């Protein structure tokens, strides 16, 4: 659904995983932008009905881009930069305590 505008040779590539699959991103991307560019359409499932959600605002307001990163839930993908080796998973329902 999304793609890079240009090849942009000067950028450094960053690798991470989403639901166990390898994803290539560019240094400086927010995690949300990187996932959208990689074709991800569901970031989380809501605690109330389990409906799929994906980023709405991309600026930290809507919290529909919440994902689990390296086992830590409730992370706002639009506010974080991608980092090498991140293990990202869909957040299913509410976060647990702990």
């Amino acid at each position, binding site marked *: *659904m*999304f*793609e*890079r*505008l*240009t090849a*942009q040779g*000067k*950028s450094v590539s960053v690798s991470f995983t989403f639901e166990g699959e390898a994803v290539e991103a*560019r240094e*400086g*991307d*927010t995690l949300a*932008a*990187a996932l*959208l*560019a990689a074709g991800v*359409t*569901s*970031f989380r499932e*809501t605690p*109330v*009905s389990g*409906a*799929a*959600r*994906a*980023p*709405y*605002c*991309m*600026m*930290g*307001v*809507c*919290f*529909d881009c*919440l994902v689990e990163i390296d086992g830590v839930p*409730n992370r706002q993908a639009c*506010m974080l*930069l991608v980092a090498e080796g991140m293990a990202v998973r869909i957040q299913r329902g509410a976060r647990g305590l702990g």
Partner: protein
Amino acid sequence: MEIFDVAVVGSGPAGMAAATTLARHGAHVVLLDEQPAPGGQIYRGIETLSKRDPALLALLGPDYARGLDLIHDLRASEADYRPGSAVWQVTPEKQVWYSRAGVSQGVAAKIVLLATGALERPVPLSGWTLPGVMTAGALQILLKSAGVKATEPPVLIGAGPLLLLLAKQYIDAGIRPAAVLDTARVSKFSALRHLPRALGATGRKYLAKGLSLMTALRRSGVPIYRGVRDVVIEGEERVEAVRFVSAQGPQRLAARLVALHEGIVPSQQIARSLRCDFIWDKSQHSFRPVVDSWGGSSMPGVLIAGDGARIGGAVAAEHGGRIAAFEALQQLGKIGEGERDEAAFAERRAQQGHLAIRPLLDALYPPPPAILNPHDDVIICRCEEVRAGELRAVIALGCQGPNQAKSFLRCGMGPCQGRLCGPTVTEIFAEAQGRSEDDVGYYRIRPPLKPLTVREFAEIDIDG
């Protein structure tokens, strides 16, 4: 705890201009911002983009490139700029607590200057929670921050300058929107009474830009539907189609991506949490904090500048940031009243020029009734999935106001903390109870203003 003369929150145009001005006059200033780089939403990603992709910088236009000067001045100043810092509490004693890289810490300041800007007005339509429905601003942020564009032509729904600008930027980037669904319903004629005021030298530049955007859109051949209402976004797992009624009758368009926009409103969270006074702005159809001509709020020592005080646009915000900075400098005893007034005079004149277009824009693009008072089956609280009809039902049972609605429905109690349902909830109460928005009021906002783990909270080094 570190002590500063001024803590500025937000590094968009108002915050950057304020912090730079304060530092230049010898104030000890910290600038806290949630984003990884300066610029706010309007100049998002501009530093990286200017180095990495000059072609995209050119595509985004000269008004965007203006942000580079502000950032250059900020970087050259003594201001202590701290990116990636999400402020989660400002106390009345002016301690500012924030989370940075998973660690929370506080700073103490004599003056707090809030420059937290605006957010896009919520657009509660049937289906607006489906993946593939985003705000126009979100699509623009993807362009600015990552050079990412849609592969499928988006359907743009709404009204206002940002929607037109996004259409133009997408056309220039080689993706023609599938259609523009124009929800504006005001007769252009009635808005024309605001035209004379907009005809100053600066106002004319905005008018010319607006007209050139409209011309570009018309020439592109993108289908434009006027007088659009009764919009329903359809889909199971994601967006599949948009149904609506336009001047030409009922329509249905297949769509994989939808961008919504009905203008922007001030971000209220921090000032609300401080119990600053707010007032309903009829012409902008939003709450805004009560501020004096210097940005002074009802709380002593708390100044508010930029779109967070009242929507005026990026350049007006820059001037507003400097005006508030001069006031702060005077309060700190760094400059006298005479110097403050003199320094602010030029800023005010320039700011007036940029504000002259606003009454015309406000009159041309009021939010449509369908998003202020959505149908019963429309989700208004995205986090807790509360529908407008559920709220109306508890109002009929005697629910008194937005804060009681939280206990009835958990409305506004999810992770976004009411940011995306607050405006709608106030409107629905006002309509159902026949009260003014001022009388209904808004959610009581409490810290932490951003989700914080108990562990992070427990690990705060209070003496640090």
